């Protein structure tokens, strides 16, 4: 035991240097998805979003081609935007045409009209009427639509604590007759089955 003590300071110095390196790495590496490898792993260019400056990686929840469940797709958005602008960019990515093999559960023609984040971190997203009128209906489809929006925002932004959907500026009871949309969703949506 005694003869081991001499190298303790050396170990501490090594740990110190290592931690400093690690801290610097995390401070200066773009985004916090460092080693993320998500399904598809594709970065789709978007007309509305300029991608010349520094970017950050985000993940959007889209519908899988086969299983009718959600999966994440990695995208990039400019990192020098305000939170509001970032959320808008993320929703834009969610609405835009996904790559082969994936589907967006947001109906065609849907626009994000405005966005507001209150002091408790609840994000209110005001969508155009298409999100409701052009929806194919049905519980699972509704859950996939609401889940893709809610999960995408709660997953990517620690600052966002809740997500509420509005249509044409008004609160809604449900999007398609089933899912409770009367309050902000504070947790990601999941559907648990016994295996």
């Amino acid at each position: 035991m005694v003869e081991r003590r001499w190298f303790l300071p050396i170990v501490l110095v090594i740990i110190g240097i290592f931690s400093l390196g690690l801290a610097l790495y995390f401070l200066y590496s773009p985004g916090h998805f460092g080693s993320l490898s998500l399904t598809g792993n594709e970065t789709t260019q978007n007309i509305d979003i300029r991608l010349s400056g520094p970017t950050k990686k985000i993940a959007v929840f889209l519908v899988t081609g086969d299983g009718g469940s959600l999966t994440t797709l990695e995208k990039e958005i400019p990192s020098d935007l305000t939170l509001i602008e970032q959320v808008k960019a993320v929703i834009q990515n969610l609405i835009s045409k996904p790559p082969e093999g994936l589907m967006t559960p947001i109906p065609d023609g849907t626009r994000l009209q405005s966005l507001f984040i209150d002091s408790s971190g609840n994000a209110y997203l005001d969508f155009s009427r298409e999100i409701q009128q052009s929806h194919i209906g049905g519980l699972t489809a509704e859950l996939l639509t609401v889940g893709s929006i809610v999960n995408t925002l709660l997953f990517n932004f620690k600052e966002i604590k809740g997500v509420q959907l509005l249509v044409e500026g008004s609160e809604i009871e449900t999007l398609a007759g089933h899912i409770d949309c009367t309050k902000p969703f504070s947790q990601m949506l999941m559907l648990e089955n016994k295996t």
Partner: protein
Amino acid sequence: MVYTRLKLGIVLILLLGFVPSSQANTLELVFEDGRSRNTLYTLSEGGVEYIPLNQVVQAFNLSRNWDSLNGMILLSYRGRTASITPDQPIAIVERRSYSFKNSPKYIEGILMIPLDYVINILPLLYDKEMSWDSSRRVLRIGSSRIEIASLQHAVYTDYTRIVIQTNKSIAYKVVEKLPALLILDLPEASFILPNNPLQVGSNVVKTVKVINSYGTTQVLINLGEQFASYNHFALNDPPRIVIDVYSTPGGGNTARKEEKPPLVGESLNPLDILPKARTPTTVRAVIIDPGHGGRDNGIALGPDLWEKDITLTVAQKLSESIRRRLGVRVILTRNANENLSPVERTTLANSTKADLFISLHVNNSFSPNTRGFEVYTLDAPGTSDNTNPEALLVKASALDHAQETYLDKSERLANYIVTAYNEETKSKDARSKRAPLLVLKGAIMPAVQIEMGYFSNPVDKEKITQEDFQKLIVKVITDGIINFKRYLEQVSLN
């Protein structure tokens, strides 16, 4: 146990044979409370150490489910969940995301979990402290964290009793901020309490609130106008702290009174203007809700056929079947092409004093592959703690937590119907699931929503309009209700 270990060992040896440049190792799991020691077999590949998921599930006593919405594996421990997605270094624990270094992955068909998931993510799920000693290769799982299990109260003529139940005995001290407040100082504890703050509203105690404050946990007892004195003591089996607050002076000096069991379910929020919660002992009346109606068509099933039409047809047949086979009263929320909001449907169900609620729908998805008969109960995630209390009060309506009391019974009803379907069709096509469904949220009775089949699936689509299939659905739902009624009657006898 020995056999399982042997089996895992063999599997790992085989894996080693197949996967080049991989390396086997072991690590010790030591449960500090002295209960057990466990050896886990690990496999290193590309500098990353992995443990087979099966071993992790077994060693930590977790249960494994499938999240069909997000396509993830869910590990759960005492109602908390953490996700695993192959090839993604992201876990969702209690519905928030956390990243870790290396992705779980399949190696030779076996799902392997990286060691850093076990070290960094499992402690978020598990209720115990963990520490990893990499030189000795020992993962120590500490003694349980302190947990406040429940907060209850009972109002008697001359005093109000507050009972704080914990998972183990703990030291506490009472700080007086008289005449308004008593503070119970506890070591830092975790708590998920559905009734926090607890609205007592007696003449001596207004509210009780549990909060975390700078590394300690405090129970704040807001005193009422008639407060005169208090007394406190700790009891075991189960471990709990009892505080009696008196409207007469010297309450703290009188001999300790016999502890009466706290009146559970009496702590209704004053906002709850609902009819008093009832415990059904049998089934006397059933309310059936044909989904959609009026302007709300539901899914377009054909040129002139909507979800709202099918749900009404089946509801009418079901109503007839229940009346005939159970001899009980059946009410429909609508008997024509009427417009009703989800909340109006629930209100209707509550006001008719029915004993169970069944909402009928046709399902739909974006993919033709998903199919089957599904029975949903309410997914009631706790209210967010981010909203400030005032805002929460304004937002909270009487209906928000109504169904929570009945969730156990609702799930039982769902399982009876699912079982009846699978037995009748000799298949596994029926499942029970949970979703945040508005129509179920406010129901003060066991309540389920039935999705009869997927319109987006060609097989289900074909069946849904057929007389035979509708007959089958009606039969299995009635069978399920009969079994549920039998269960209620048995429980009330014991």
